[in-house]
């Protein structure tokens, strides 16, 4: 085919080839392998490659899977809610109330200058039985014996992740706030709104895209997080990824692990789509 690179289609294909190859190798291929594994089964010595729904049936019927899946989604939801709720005022402050925007944005990224593991361990030190929090409360006499509900539970997981994710929520919300033409705010005031009404009727609906972006960025990876729950979650705070890790590791049941991954992906996808649809619809209802 002489001159194929001269046609528009040819050029397009040629230009997108490296990206397609990259995506193909790094995303599509592993996913295909994962799907294949999920239909196989693990015998004691080898993988049985006859196709079967067995793993899916096990995932659907095992109460542990259901319990962990639900808990993962709830914890991720709580993390998302907490992070976005805390990030919004910070983003608002940077966008509207300070001249030193760059400085503040820089300060917000400072936690990233240290490793995530280090930050999780810091929370362990803060929340632990002999940790900073308990020591402080004990010395001030606020409590008589160390609090035990601080660490190794869902609360610790939510707190640690909300702290870790903060910049990921602040930045998209900040961008959407920053984009708002100040004339819209003045127009709302001019038409009789006080500050609060103006926030709910103009600022908030205009930042819905930022809120959605922030929520997805946080929610999706959080459902699959396993480092945080295993370090600060205790048995109460275990999540679905911990179970997957067991299947791929100690239990050596890759097919079931693959099935769990796919089920988790599908659940996250469904929840995320539902969230986007509902939030967008809610945003539209504000008039």
């Amino acid at each position, binding site marked *: 085919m002489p001159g194929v690179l001269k046609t528009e289609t040819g050029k397009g294909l040629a230009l997108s080839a490296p990206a397609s190859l990259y995506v193909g190798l790094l995303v599509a291929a592993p996913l295909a392998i994962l799907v294949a594994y999920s239909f196989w089964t693990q015998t004691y010595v080898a993988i049985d490659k006859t196709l079967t729904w067995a793993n899916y049936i096990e995932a659907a019927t095992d109460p542990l899977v259901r319990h962990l899946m639900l808990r993962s989604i709830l914890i991720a939801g709580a993390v998302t809610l907490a992070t976005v709720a805390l990030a919004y005022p910070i983003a608002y402050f940077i966008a509207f109330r300070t001249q030193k925007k760059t400085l503040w944005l820089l300060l917000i990224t400072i936690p990233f200058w240290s490793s995530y593991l280090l930050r999780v361990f810091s929370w362990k030190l803060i929340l632990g039985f002999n940790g900073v929090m308990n020591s402080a409360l004990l010395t001030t006499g606020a409590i008589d014996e160390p609090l035990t509900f601080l660490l190794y539970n869902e609360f610790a997981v939510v707190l640690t992740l909300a702290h870790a994710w903060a910049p990921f929520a602040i930045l998209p919300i900040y961008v959407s706030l920053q984009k708002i*033409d100040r004339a*819209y705010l003045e*127009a709302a*005031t*001019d*038409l*009789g709104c*006080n500050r609060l009404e103006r926030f709910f009727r103009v600022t908030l609906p205009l930042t819905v895209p930022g809120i959605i972006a922030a929520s997805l960025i946080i929610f999706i990876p959080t459902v699959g997080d396993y480092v945080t729950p295993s370090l600060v979650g205790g048995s109460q705070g275990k999540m679905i990824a911990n179970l997957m890790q067991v299947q791929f590791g100690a239990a050596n049941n890759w097919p079931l692990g693959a099935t769990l991954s796919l089920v988790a992906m599908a659940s996250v996808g469904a929840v995320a789509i539902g969230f986007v649809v509902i939030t967008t619809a809610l*945003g539209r209802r504000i008039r």
Partner: protein
Amino acid sequence: MSDQNIIEISGVEKRFGTFTAVSDLNLDLKKGEFFSLLGPSGCGKTTALRMIAGFQDNDKGSISIDGQDMADIPANKRPANMVFQSYAIFPHLNVGDNVAFGLRKLGLSKAEIKTRVAEALGMVELGGLETRKADELSGGQRQRVALARALVMRPKVLLLDEPLSALDKNLREAMQLEMRRLQQKLGITFVMVTHDQYEAMTMSDRIGVMFAGKLAQVDRPDVLYARPCNRQVASFIGGMNFLQARMVGDGGGQMDVDVQGFGKLTIGVNPNVEIHDTDLLVGVRPEQLEIGAEKPDGYDGYLQGEVSDVAFYGESVHYHIRAAGLDETLAVAVPNYFHTVDHQRGDTVWLGVQNASVIDLGAREHQ
């Protein structure tokens, strides 16, 4: 206060740091008038308008609307509404909801809101466009929505910050007429900021001309054109030839002056001028000079010169005349009656002027 006045501004000053954006602003606006604030970029027009709207506090002086002092009344409680330069149409709402935005606070029934929105949209000729999205509107339509959204509130005063500057020339001229018609129909006081002299003149009952934060003159458009108070105002509104003159005698509202190039003339004393002196500045509008190859009959002053430039404008032809004893060329505008350009560069021509065309601009030292 007089009950003829809807807005009374006295001694208002606004500073940004050490920079004074508006100083000693005194202005009374009458009920139902179309008032324009005209001035070059950065002279403080928007700042003045925003102080009336309540978006900016004044450092000195007082502003009252309809007899009520606005000092402690926030922007959202003032009986004035604004049309923003960028229109500020809420992008998350459709046209109907944009117009209904302010109404939703008034505790009206749904049906009532609907009627008033439809009525307002009808007024700006956008009837039936309620469900159109904000980003599907043309520039002219956005301008109309902004107008409807403010008018639907039935304000006592409508404030407009360069409402037409984003539109192309034809649309702008059509909207000028339409807004004027609407204003007269509704009888609401319009306060418009503009830097376009023609816009100000065609639309307004009165114009306030501002320079560097100060109001130089407030008058009807025709008075502003005929009796500008100084050189600055004279050159900002319309074209003007400036000439030096000496007062040789005065009395009875008239004065005899010796005008550079034209000689002895008798002109009216301009009541808007603050300071007179024997050394005067006078002005003549380009269209009020007569030009001819022969000396024209029946004029009070004459001058002979040479055409240095010809500019064809379509509806008129502008000649620039250089004459002995004048520092600058004189502009002469001749209506294009017969599709002819009568004089060419280098031609020797006569100019004639009537006494009544010469405008007294006051002492030369105080320009």
